[in-house]
């Protein structure tokens, strides 16, 4: 039996996802839970698992397509159960041949005796499509034997593109023509080619061949019309057929459209005069999510940023000592786990910072757990994996988990759950360079700490009552906080706590 599979809600109630990549193709056998596709939601890239054991019959979405949750994206052929509608199962050995036949049932233009007299194997020679078109079909994830309508005519590039752009495989010639026209329209966005408005005025077709009587050809030539572009629903000898009336009507529409175009082009020409080279990329997916979250945070929470510096010479020493020990556990030890532990300790001392504002209930929620997010720059944009219960974990454990999650963030294989539930965020701008920043709070948290680069700076050191100027390792701290729930004094006290642990990392041993 056939099993249709809809794009599931892949996390956080997202409404749609971009189908990044198919991992299977029609004819592949799949087992339950095997990943069949990669889908990018506005939070992350997730694998979509197969719900069944079976054979992939059809891919209903093209790579790069934005698919609403609940749309059928893939159809499986599943063994063992009878056809629910009682139709006779197709006697075929392999699944590929099988799928070729399933679609024949949906092809009203094909005479019934054809489908019965042709064994599935004849698809090999009977589907007439040039090699370049077959390759395109694979690129777009279209099973070429599903383009049943054209089985008597040659399948063209346009047919395949049209098929890739539609999620229903109904196949009357009329629809096929409209889809072809739609595909063409997308291709012809550039102002210099055939104009937009002419297509709007009248649908245009793009066939390989057209049948017409000599008189029609004559009129078309006089009007300067390419017969292959004239829309038609009629067929003759299995080929599209264009009547004289259709040509005349089309010619009239074209003339009107050309007139409109001239005006439009003249308008645009003025604007194009000062054009400079630029490129455009879609603002969507992760980028768009970041944008929305930042706008929301900055416009709801009054941000104040408290800035200070801390002498981390002892921390630098401690880390260089511990690094080798960590390496024996195959763990790369950076400064980040120390800062995370320091923040967890400081949050415990200053619980008023570990809060979120529940506006709906007009309550301030104080968290008694310490989940720390680590802002991570990736090619797709900023992602914040969360390490839970940092207070309860050892330094090495925190290091290992942080390394692993930031790495997966860069590979974009984090699940949405792994970026949720944070109570405080650290952003290490210093890794790239810089001193102070004004970070934006990762709501619903109430504070975020940005770390500057650790630099050697001359600082006054007091020892044995004597003051000297020495080169010291200094790190800057920028703490943005939500002034609705915190005041400057809270922020300063919290920062002091963090400084205490970073200045003297031995104190972390007491935690």
């Amino acid at each position, binding site marked *: 039996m056939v099993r249709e599979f809809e794009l599931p809600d892949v996390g956080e109630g997202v409404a749609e996802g971009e189908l990044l990549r198919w991992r299977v193709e029609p004819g592949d056998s799949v087992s339950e839970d095997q990943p069949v596709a990669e889908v990018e939601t506005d939070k992350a890239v997730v694998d979509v698992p197969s719900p069944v054991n079976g054979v992939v019959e059809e891919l209903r979405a093209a790579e790069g397509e934005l698919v609403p949750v609940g749309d059928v994206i893939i159809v499986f052929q599943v063994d063992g159960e009878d056809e629910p509608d009682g139709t006779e199962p197709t006697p075929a050995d392999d699944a590929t041949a099988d799928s070729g036949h399933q679609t024949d049932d949906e092809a009203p233009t094909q005479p019934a005796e*054809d489908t019965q*007299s*042709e*064994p599935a*194997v*004849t698809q*090999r*020679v*009977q*589907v*007439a*499509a*040039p*090699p370049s078109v*077959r*390759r395109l079909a*694979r*690129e777009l994830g279209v099973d070429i034997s599903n383009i049943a309508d054209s089985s*008597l005519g*040659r*399948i063209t590039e346009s047919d395949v593109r049209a098929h890739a752009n539609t999620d229903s495989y109904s196949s009357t010639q009329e629809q096929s023509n409209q889809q072809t026209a739609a595909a063409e329209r997308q291709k012809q966005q550039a102002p210099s080619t055939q104009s937009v408005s002419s297509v709007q005025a009248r649908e245009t077709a793009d066939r390989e061949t057209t049948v017409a009587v000599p008189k029609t050809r004559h009129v078309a030539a006089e009007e300067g019309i390419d017969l292959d572009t004239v829309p038609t629903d009629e067929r003759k000898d*299995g080929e599209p057929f264009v009547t004289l009336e259709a040509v005349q009507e089309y010619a009239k529409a074209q003339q009107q459209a050309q007139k409109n175009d001239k005006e439009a082009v003249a308008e645009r020409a003025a604007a194009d005069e000062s054009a400079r080279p630029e490129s455009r990329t879609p603002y969507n997916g992760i980028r768009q999510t970041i944008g929305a979250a930042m706008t929301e945070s900055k416009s709801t929470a009054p941000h104040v940023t408290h800035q200070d510096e801390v002498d981390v010479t002892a921390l630098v020493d401690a880390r260089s000592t511990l690094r080798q020990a960590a390496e024996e556990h195959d763990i790369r030890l950076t400064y980040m786990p120390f800062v995370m532990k320091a923040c967890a300790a400081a949050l415990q001392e200053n619980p008023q910072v570990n809060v979120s504002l529940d506006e709906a209930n007009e309550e301030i929620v104080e968290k008694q757990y310490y989940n720390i997010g680590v802002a991570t720059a990736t090619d797709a944009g900023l992602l914040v994996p969360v390490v839970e219960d940092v207070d309860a974990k050892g330094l090495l454990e925190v290091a290992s988990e942080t390394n692993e999650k930031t790495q997966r963030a860069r590979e974009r294989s984090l699940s949405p759950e792994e970026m949720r539930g944070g109570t405080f965020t650290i952003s290490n701008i210093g890794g790239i360079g810089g001193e102070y920043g004004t970070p934006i709070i990762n709501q619903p948290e109430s504070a975020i700490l940005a770390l500057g680069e650790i630099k050697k700076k001359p600082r006054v050191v007091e020892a044995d009552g004597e003051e000297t100027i020495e080169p010291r390792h200094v790190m800057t701290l920028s703490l943005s906080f939500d002034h609705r729930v915190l005041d400057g004094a809270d922020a300063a006290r919290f920062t002091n706590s963090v400084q205490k642990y970073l200045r003297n990392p031995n104190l972390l041993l007491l935690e």
Partner: protein
Amino acid sequence: MVVGDVTTSTDVLIIGAGPGGYVAAIRAAQLDLDVTLVEKGEYGGACLNRGCIPSKALLNGSELATEAGQAEELGIYADPTVALDEMISWKDGLVDQLTSGIEQLCTAAGVNLMKGTAEFAHENKIRIVHQGEGQGSESLKFDHCIIATGSRPIEVPGFDFDDDRIVSSDGALNFETVPDELVIVGAGYIGMELATVYSRLGSDVSVIEMLEQALPSYQEDIASIVRRRAERLGVDFYFGYTADSWAESEGEAVLTAVPTDEAAHDSEIELTADKILVAVGRRPVTETLGIEAVGVETDAQGFIPTDSRCRTNKEHIFAVGDVAGEPMLAHKGSKEGEVAAEVIAGEPAAVDYRALPAAVFTDPEIGTVGLTEDEAANEGITPVTGEFQFQASGRALTANRTEGFVRIVAAKETERVIGAQIVGPEASELIAEIAVMIEMGAKLQDIGSTVHVHPTLSEAVMEAAQNARGKAIHRQN
């Protein structure tokens, strides 16, 4: 000195530098993969060293000699003598030129070349044993592997290749002198091509074939044209006989053949020979690879089954060319090599040809592509055919080569071209046009309405297509 076993790594490891392997290597390198190509012998594989190229060189050389000596009709009187050793060294020069060309192409594309015999250590690691005693070995880790180890001639029991009396096609391409008496076991395309070469060069050639037809895998009306021409060159055929044994007697070999079916022939025959060429087929080369160790499956004949993307049962191990099964054709191997490389690079490639052209370089040549009339009917397609005899081609007449015909097969209902068989002059070149037509999904009219140059042999293709529609000009329809 034993060189230590050093492990390095590569994205794509390709085993065998024949037409499947080297094409895969170049394409993979073009796609920015790190590629290592391992070859234990000569670059170019059987095709360049022991197959397509050397046999065609000798066919062409022997044809030139024969034509010149048999053109009295045209007023040409000549009696060419052939120095076989010189013809062979000319052939060897061509082979050297082509094999070093392949090496250069690979190097220029950025392929790492390694000499040695490859053996799987485990799923992602291969050991490469260098040639020669004590030369040591090294190990290579790989992400993907393409097996392109090719095939070698099959031996018949009792006829072990000894490079003296009993030779394979490899040996027959390197005779020092033209044998007086040559017995060929097997009338397949290799046996028939070499029968053509040596009968032209003056050998007394006998061919023993188990079945009752020369070129048994081709249609009878095609094979018989080639057989008749071979008989005119002096080849004796013994159909329905199986080579049984041979013995040395008074300075020559005596081969005994027994009837395959005792009802058809009553007694065994004895044939004397200077050389016995055994050409009964080829088998895949996998035995030194250790593929069982990594779980790559083979079928009953030892071929490695693959899917349309050239993958074996192991996701990361591919197989292309002869080792991946029939038909064992260089151009099939090359196509698969390209596909495997592109699949590894993440491209949506697949082996999706509609029809695979093939040629036999006998006299006259045979070119085939797609389905025959019977095969079409077996697949449920009602066929329609059109034919054109070279006898009616002006160009064939001027070339003094009028044997044979072009036959085109189309689906009756759609008039789409689905196959062709050509026997006659330049059949191996003419078949290419029809292969393109099949791939493009062309109809009979597309060929028939395309203008072909006059006077050429290709007009016969056009006329055959028109004949299928009842519209040929230069013959009755």
